[in-house]
């Protein structure tokens, strides 16, 4: 048997060797969370969100474990699945965002102690609280009686997302009176421009609270109550072009902050982009066990709260962002190369030096924005729908807050029925209503008195505001003050009803399962503004209601050849309603639904071999997932037309396939090794269609134009990764482990605008620009070292645990964490708008001390 195993390993590794320089990987035990990375991009501003790169806790599988803790540091995703393909549940309630599908872990950030109790199913497999996505299910339980009696407190010190964290948890366990309580609070904090932060101008403040109660009524019934929330504020950084990193000599430049002078003449740092979330959830649970064979758990929930982030906005003024392309030295050079009057070589050198040396040039210049606002005295006639004439200082620049306020409620119910010890039936229903309120409001007038709420991209004369420029024709010439809603205002309605069931059968050497899901989704938009360019029900009131029906099926199982060797296979056919954002041409301003709305369809299957012995646990799997009818929707400034456009690509087909290997080896009782590697391929497999609409014009620029993307990598993560680790586990309650990680085949997602026939008008095949447009950018391969160590003590009944994790021990500051091609593209000069990057932090650590009693 061993021989076969070695053979398989050899084959897998030899392929790996051919494909890349081979590296394997291991894992130490990690008790800390993987790094959570906050990212927002310039095309995704309206939904600035917290994106988590991996799982809160991973299953015991060596591969999944390493993927979660070591690979995720460079945005690796298991089997290339987006996080929206994992169902994340708390007590059976789906935590994935109904509009975009992704779960946002920041909603319960800081509650690690109490969210630890979870069942994780990776990929397609047996699940217990929902049918699940192709990437699996994470089911967290917060049932108060499940926590053992305990007091725990911890302090953490880190230079990652936050510098300091304190956390305290108290749980009673099930008390004799039938009650059980669990409570947790935590606080996280990073001061502005902390010396430990990798990026200037960032800060973070968050608190969390959690309370769970359960009352056991009798043998059959138990009632539960839960409330938790995690209010947080974060001043963030943004990716930038390599030019600015090179000019300033650091890959951690952050364009979002600048100096501001207060009334007393003191200067302070201010970040323009601050996100702020507080979305608490309330749950009432009913646990019912009518017999030994049946269990029914039902949860009713209400989830609401505010979320959003601030950003600079401006009208009748130039883009003030220091890294806006026209503000960079390269633009001066571009104009110089064009021979524009007034641009000289000396001027270029001078401008470059200024940009480098003057903080007011390479960071925001708040004082200048205030000064501009305080000089803009003007009169607006027929203001606020013709009722007033308003004179005052009109802000050219403001800070606006882009909000997405959550309002969700629903009911979920799951059951488990045991026909006999070998045959189980699971199932349930989920009904949910979601109304997310999207709008912008004035957060700071930056010294001015008012802000005139008109569309800066709409065509119009300077002194005569046309109806087309009105963001809300029901409140023409809206003169906005702090707190007023501007720009857009709508509600995304997503109502879902899901029925699912699953049968499991275990007999002799076979373990099998099969599941079904039926889902109904209703989506519509309710416009609160009547946009001047899209009158009447084109933007105001309820849009057409889109009703989608979906059915899904999965099946799989394992066969035990003997007690040590197993064959595993799974398959899933999943149909999902498209995302709300992808259904509307321009959800911010229009009720119009895109042509050809279609359900996403996914077909996934895998085949694996597992070996389990006291010496080694190993898994070797091959997988393939096909995606059909995906949609991709972005809004950006389109260089070809000089207009802000909504760009919708649909009918996208992709596949992801590859081989995964993971192994846990106990070399001696104190020394163990872990290894994990995967070689994957994630590509487009067809030519999608694109629909492009000008933001301020109903007529399309493209309608069904072909995008030539077949075989391009879907990108955005390293396709080939490997890690090896060694761990020493001392009998004296301390341990240390080291992991070496390797990342390769990391392609940036392609910009589809560069792959339509129009992009090549007048370009010959041999032209260098043809190559630049067609070529897919690949990031450098990277190698990192991670270190983990821990020690525990038992002192008079107190359990004390000290944990340290150090990532990127080699302090490599040149590893791109994340990058993307700018959607803005100049076909004549494709290098004009280069990629934007965000770099992996240099050496970063997380130290925590926990005391439990």
């Amino acid at each position: 048997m061993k021989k076969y195993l070695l053979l398989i390993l050899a084959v897998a590794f030899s392929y790996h060797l051919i494909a890349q320089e081979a590296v394997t990987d291991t894992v130490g035990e990690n008790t800390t969370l993987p790094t959570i990375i906050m990212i927002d991009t310039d095309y995704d501003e309206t939904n600035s969100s917290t994106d988590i790169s991996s799982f809160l806790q991973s299953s015991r599988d060596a591969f999944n474990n390493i993927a979660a803790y070591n690979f995720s540091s460079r945005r690796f995703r298991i089997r290339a699945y987006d996080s929206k393909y994992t169902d994340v549940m708390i007590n059976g309630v789906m935590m994935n965002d109904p509009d975009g599908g992704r779960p946002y872990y920041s909603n319960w950030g800081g509650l690690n102690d109490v969210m630890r109790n979870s069942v994780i199913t990776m990929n397609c497999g047996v699940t217990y609280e929902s049918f699940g996505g192709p990437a699996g299910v994470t089911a967290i339980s917060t049932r108060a009686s499940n926590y053992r009696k305990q007091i725990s407190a911890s302090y953490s010190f880190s230079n990652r997302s936050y510098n300091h964290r304190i956390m305290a948890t108290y749980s009673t366990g099930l008390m004799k009176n039938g009650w059980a309580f669990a409570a947790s609070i935590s606080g996280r904090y990073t001061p502005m421009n902390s010396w430990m932060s990798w990026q200037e101008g960032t800060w973070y403040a968050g608190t969390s609270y959690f309370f769970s109660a359960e009352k056991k009524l009798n043998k059959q019934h138990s009632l539960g109550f839960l409330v938790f929330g995690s209010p947080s504020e974060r001043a963030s950084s943004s990716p930038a072009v390599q030019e600015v990193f090179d000019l300033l000599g650091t890959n951690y430049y952050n364009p979002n902050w600048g100096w501001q002078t207060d009334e007393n003449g003191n200067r302070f740092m201010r970040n323009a982009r601050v996100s702020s979330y507080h979305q608490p959830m309330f749950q009432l649970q009913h646990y019912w066990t009518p017999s030994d064979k049946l269990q029914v758990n039902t949860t009713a929930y209400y989830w609401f709260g505010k979320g959003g982030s601030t950003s600079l906005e401006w009208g009748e003024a130039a883009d003030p962002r220091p890294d806006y392309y026209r503000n960079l030295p390269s633009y001066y050079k571009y104009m110089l190369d064009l021979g524009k009057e007034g641009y000289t070589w000396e001027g270029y050198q001078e401008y470059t030096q200024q940009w480098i040396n003057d903080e007011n040039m390479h960071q925001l210049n708040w004082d200048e924005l205030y000064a501009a606002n305080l000089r803009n005295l003007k009169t607006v006639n027929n203001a606020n729908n013709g009722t007033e004439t308003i004179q005052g200082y009109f802000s050219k620049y403001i800070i606006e807050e882009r909000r997405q306020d959550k309002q969700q409620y629903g009911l979920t119910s799951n059951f488990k029925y045991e026909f006999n010890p070998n045959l189980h039936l699971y199932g349930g229903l989920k009904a949910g209503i979601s109304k997310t309120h999207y709008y912008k409001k004035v957060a700071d007038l930056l010294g001015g008195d008012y802000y005139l709420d008109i569309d800066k991209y709409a065509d119009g004369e300077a002194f005569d505001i046309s109806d087309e420029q009105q963001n809300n024709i029901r409140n023409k010439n809206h003169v906005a003050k702090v707190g007023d809603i501007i720009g857009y205002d709508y509600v995304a309605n997503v109502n879902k009803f899901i029925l699912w069931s699953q049968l499991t059968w275990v007999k002799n050497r076979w373990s099998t399962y099969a599941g079904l899901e039926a889902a109904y989704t209703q989506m519509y938009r309710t416009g609160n503004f009547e946009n001047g360019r899209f009158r009447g029900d084109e933007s105001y009131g309820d849009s057409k209601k889109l009703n989608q029906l979906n059915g899904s099926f999965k099946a799989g199982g394992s066969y035990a050849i003997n007690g040590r060797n197993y064959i595993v296979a799974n398959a899933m056919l999943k149909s999902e309603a498209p995302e709300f954002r992808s259904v509307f041409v321009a959800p911010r301003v229009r009720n119009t639904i895109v042509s050809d709305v279609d359900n996403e369809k996914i077909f996934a299957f895998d085949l694996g071999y597992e070996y389990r012995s006291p010496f080694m646990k190993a898994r070797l799997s091959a997988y393939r997932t096909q995606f059909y009818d995906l949609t991709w929707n972005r809004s950006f400034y389109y260089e070809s037309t000089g207009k802000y456009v909504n760009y919708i690509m649909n009918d996208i087909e992709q596949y992801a396939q590859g081989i995964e290997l993971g192994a846990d080896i106990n070399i001696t009782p104190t020394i163990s090794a872990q290894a994990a590697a995967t070689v994957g391929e994630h590509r487009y497999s067809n030519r999608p269609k694109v629909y492009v609409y000008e933001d301020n014009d109903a007529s399309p620029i493209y309608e069904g134009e072909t995008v030539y993307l077949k075989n391009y990598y879907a990108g955005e993560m390293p396709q080939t990764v490997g890690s090896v680790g060694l761990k020493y586990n001392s009998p004296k309650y301390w341990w240390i482990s080291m992991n070496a990680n390797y990342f390769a085949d990391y392609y940036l997602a392609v910009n589809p605008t560069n792959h339509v026939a129009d992009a090549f008008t007048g370009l010959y095949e041999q032209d260098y620009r043809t190559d630049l447009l067609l070529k897919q950018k690949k990031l450098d391969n990277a190698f990192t070292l991670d270190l983990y160590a821990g020690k525990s003590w038992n002192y008079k009944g107190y359990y004390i645990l000290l944990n340290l994790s150090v990532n990127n021990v080699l302090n490599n500051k040149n590893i791109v964490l994340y990058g993307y091609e700018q959607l803005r593209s100049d076909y004549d000069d494709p290098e004009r708008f280069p990629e934007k990057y965000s770099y992996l932090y240099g050496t970063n650590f997380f130290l925590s001390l926990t005391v439990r009693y």
Partner: protein
Amino acid sequence: MKKLAILLIGVMLVFVSCKKNLDQPDITSFPEDNVWSVGQILDSLANGAFTFNQDSQKNAIVKGYVIADETGGNIYRTFYLRGEDGKCIAVYRKGSSEGGSDDFNVKTGDHIGYKLYGSIISEYSKLPQIQVQEHDVNKLIVIYERGCDDKVRPISTTIEDINAGKHLCDLVKISDAQFEPYEGLTYAEGQNNTNRNLVTCSGEGIIVRTSGYASFAAEPLPEGRGTLTAIASVYNTTWQMLIRNTSDVKMNDVRCGGGGDIMEMPYNQVFTSSFGTYTTFSVVGDQVWTIDYSTAVMKGKVGNTFYENEDWLISSPVHIADVEHAKAVVNYVAQYTGPDKDVTAQISADYEYGDDPTNANWTDLNVTFENSAGWNDFLDKEISLDEYIGQTVTFAIKFVSSTTQSRTIEIKSIAVMEGEAGGGGGGTLTGDGTRENPYTAQDVITMNTQTSDGNKYWVKDYIVGFVDADYVYVFTSAAGDVKTNIILSSNVDPTTADECIPIQLPAGAVRDGLNLADNPGNYKQEVLIYGTLEKYFQVAAVKNVTYAEINGNSYGIEPGGGGTEYFNQTLTSQASFNTFTAYSVAGTQVWHFDSAHANYGAQMSGFENNTSYANEDWFISPEIDLSASSSPTLTFEHTRGPAGSINVGVNEGYYTVWVTNNYAEGQNPNDVQWMELTGVVHATTGWAWVSSGRITIPEAFKTATCRIAFKYLSIDGASATWEVRNVIISE
């Protein structure tokens, strides 16, 4: 178990995918099956202007690197291309007034391919260029690579080499140079094209020409000394430099050439634009040494009056190195007659630089500066300085004039160098370019194209070989397939190219009769040819050969019929043009002469401001006395253009030649009876000069009052330009 494992491996291998091609839309491929090197284009141009208009040339392209683009505004509608073979050419697009076209949209450093079909390859005032009729960025050009900086580095060279035409159209770099004068000057004045003098520390000078529309036109000239990078250009015989932008000018060092420092040999001062390290001193008289005609000029005559003068042109002290022989070489022309010993070479060991030379002791070196054959026939006077070897001395030219006599001397350069003085003034010419006394090949070398005035001269010498495609002079009769040129030498067995002149053989009888490929028997035979003295292969040469005699055979059209000439007007000077009468019957455009393009002869075009206007314009000769002639014939050269209009009006008779006996000056030619002279050979390629052929003057016009006339017609919407020169009537 084994089976299962194999199955598993098999399934996994399926996942290991092979390489997949990335998708792309249909993208047109740029044709690369008919690539011309710039060298090939220049070689073909050597035979005259031509157009890429053959079907076989539909895919013709040229590949190379852009060394200068339009950025900066100094270079207009043009970019300069350095071919992959290192040879260079200008690429010019017609502007909107000439038919309109896109911007080239190329940047310096681009590696490009350019489609040639429809382009005219011609010389614009001697600047070889690809003249693009209608540039279309979407169809004509491909940019293979951008930023090929290593391919577009300037070539470090000397002004001497630039003036020798070695780098025409190329990007060159001159070191140790400065603008002179510079104070208070900008690159250009207002919106005028402006010439500024660039002078090297060794005294060589050249024009830096800047457009008034250049973005840096109003910037001040730099004061310091340093390097200048520019395109080496030419306008007829004037070599000039075109900078791309001010970053091409890096002059931060201290200026050179204050003079007075002790110079080392070789000490060569060129007086192109300044006296450099030389100083002047006027002992007597108001006239002084000046810089003019790119020389140091001295004369004692102003208007028609002679003045008494004593004026010195004095070197910095120069250390005559410890060599076997040392000499001074004075390159000059001189004309007219002065008093005895009016120009002398002097040497002093005790002269203080800048002092009155009469305070020092001078030794007359006792040389005579003979007059030159003409203003362009520079002579080298070599003067032995052997007696002064090892000493530090000052060399001077002393000029004297009286109230009755003065010569004019123009000194181009004075060199103090190692070598044995050759004695007398070299460079005497054997012939004078007439049929009776033709120039020799050595004469052509000596004159070094100083006589490239567009006129044709007779040259006679031995055919000693040809120039091959690599510009190598081949001294055999085995010409392979080279038919476009031969080389002549006064030495029947030459050993170096310096002894030879290349002869361009235009297509037709002359080429057919002389080329060595078809006529190996011509090797080492003496040939008499008739053509213009111009540069060819970048050296003094004979071009546009229209007639040749060899071994008793004659080829081409004999100028003046070889017999008595009754009339000969070149029309390449204003004076010659003025002998004719231009009469405009209709239309505002008239026959005219353009002194900037003298060799275009008399010109007439109905095209102005991008529009063709209706015209009837006559160009009428003075009275020609043919009463004593027996069978007089008319020959002339003419051309038409542009290429796109080459067929306009030919069949309709827009360009006709007439003869009359009874035209009176000022009369409307339509009031007089004319007879058309038929049989004129017309050009079929844009801007190609052709001979009219020998046209017989009918018997009835062998009178004392015979006149011939060129009649030009155009209509609204259709016209071409007609240019006429070298009108000859002879037996």
